[in-house]
């Protein structure tokens, strides 16, 4: 039985797993990108208040593996709160939290390192604040930000695999279940790898291309 025979035979199950993975990733991406960009901008603008708090949480989170946070939110936290939460939502919350702070870090660093001289040069050319933000700051910041964002979102997509460990029926868990019943690990896990390659490679490629195109040398030599 080849890879495509396996995929075809279990297409329903695979499709279900893919749908859960895509749904999970989409929610995590959306929350992380929106909240992360807002927090990043706020961190840069209000460095003493928001900036330091966010930096502290971010620093704390970076020291704990995602899997530990996921397990902690799935078992001890729910026991403490005396609540039972659908593992899918637990995974969404944890991964969104991690993604939010990863994006916040990226945005904050790029905003903090924005060469203010470009804005000064715009001011002495008589440009107004709004023009400086839209025509100078935003394009420069976005060009530096997008490749990093794409790479981080690919990493988050790959981190959705951890959700299988708290029983979320995503693609990895489905693959494990199929393998448990037919035992064709080579075909099944190759199919799984193909799925991730299909999504991650174009994103990584796009990130590389954008990086090559836009993040040439912003500094004046």
């Amino acid at each position, binding site marked *: 039985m080849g890879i495509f025979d396996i995929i075809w035979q279990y297409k329903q199950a695979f499709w279900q797993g893919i749908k859960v993975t895509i749904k999970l990733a989409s929610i995590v991406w959306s929350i992380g990108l929106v909240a992360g960009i807002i927090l990043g901008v706020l961190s840069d603008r209000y460095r003493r208040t928001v900036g330091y708090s966010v930096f502290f949480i971010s620093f704390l989170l970076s020291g704990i593996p995602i899997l530990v946070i996921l397990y902690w939110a799935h078992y001890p936290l729910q026991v403490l709160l005396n609540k039972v939460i659908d593992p899918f939502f637990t995974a969404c919350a944890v991964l969104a939290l991690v993604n939010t702070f990863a994006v916040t870090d990226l945005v904050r660093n790029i905003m903090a390192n924005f060469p203010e*001289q*470009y804005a000064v040069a715009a*001011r*002495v*050319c*008589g*440009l107004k604040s709004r*023009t400086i933000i839209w025509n100078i700051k935003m394009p*420069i910041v976005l060009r530096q930000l997008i490749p990093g964002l794409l790479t981080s979102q690919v990493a988050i997509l790959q981190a959705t695999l951890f959700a299988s460990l708290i029983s979320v029926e995503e693609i990895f868990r489905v693959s494990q279940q199929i393998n448990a019943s037919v035992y064709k690990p080579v075909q099944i896990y190759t199919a799984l790898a193909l799925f991730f390659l299909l999504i991650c490679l174009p994103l990584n490629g796009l990130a590389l291309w954008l990086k090559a195109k836009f993040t040439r040398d*912003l500094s004046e030599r």
Partner: protein
Amino acid sequence: MLTGQGINKRFGKVEALRGVNISVRPGKITLLVGPSGSGKTTLLKCLAFLERPDSGTVSFNGNSFSYPEAGMPEETPWPELTVVFQQHFLWPHLTIRENILLPVIKRKQTKSNGFEELVALFEMEDFIDRYPNQVSLGQRQRAALARALVLNPKVILLDEITSALDVEQIGKIAKHLLELRSRGIGMLLITHLLGFAKGLLHKGEGDEIVFLEKGEVLEAGGIEVLKSPRHSRVREFISQIEFTFASE
């Protein structure tokens, strides 16, 4: 006319400027000379309203701003008063053409501000549609100068604009600066190229040379400051520069 009177500026314990008086008059060139760290760029920023002096008065076009009370001018003085920085600060995401034309377009000025003439004058035809990182340092310097000139400023502050140019380009820029002076544009020029400075100054009466050290004006006056300085430190500095450039 742009003047600075009694300008003081301190960064922590360092006194960057101490009671500096300077003026940039229409159609005249003021040359600001001094060793590194003497406060030239800080003074330039104070005069350009980019840095707040701790005390003193900056006046531009009849409007006086006395510090520390004064805030930023309500009507921004730019680009009637503009600056060309040593590091150029061309916007990296825009081509040279876009860099020059963005302020013109956004300020709804007509394209006929001499854009084509400046492109021709500074020989920018070959690289006008390239990005700043795709051109040489000298080409970037010419582009930065063109970006300021296309806005028809009344006073232009030039911080080491010739540092990356070859002799031929320096000659062309000198010629253009003289033309600007004849059109009544006042210029403050920071440069170490005394030959370049002399070439600009000897043809004009009323031009001024200001020698700054440790934030203080040691000597100020006409072309004679370069030819026969009275202050021993100025003499030493000028002879050192002349020796350095002569040996090159």
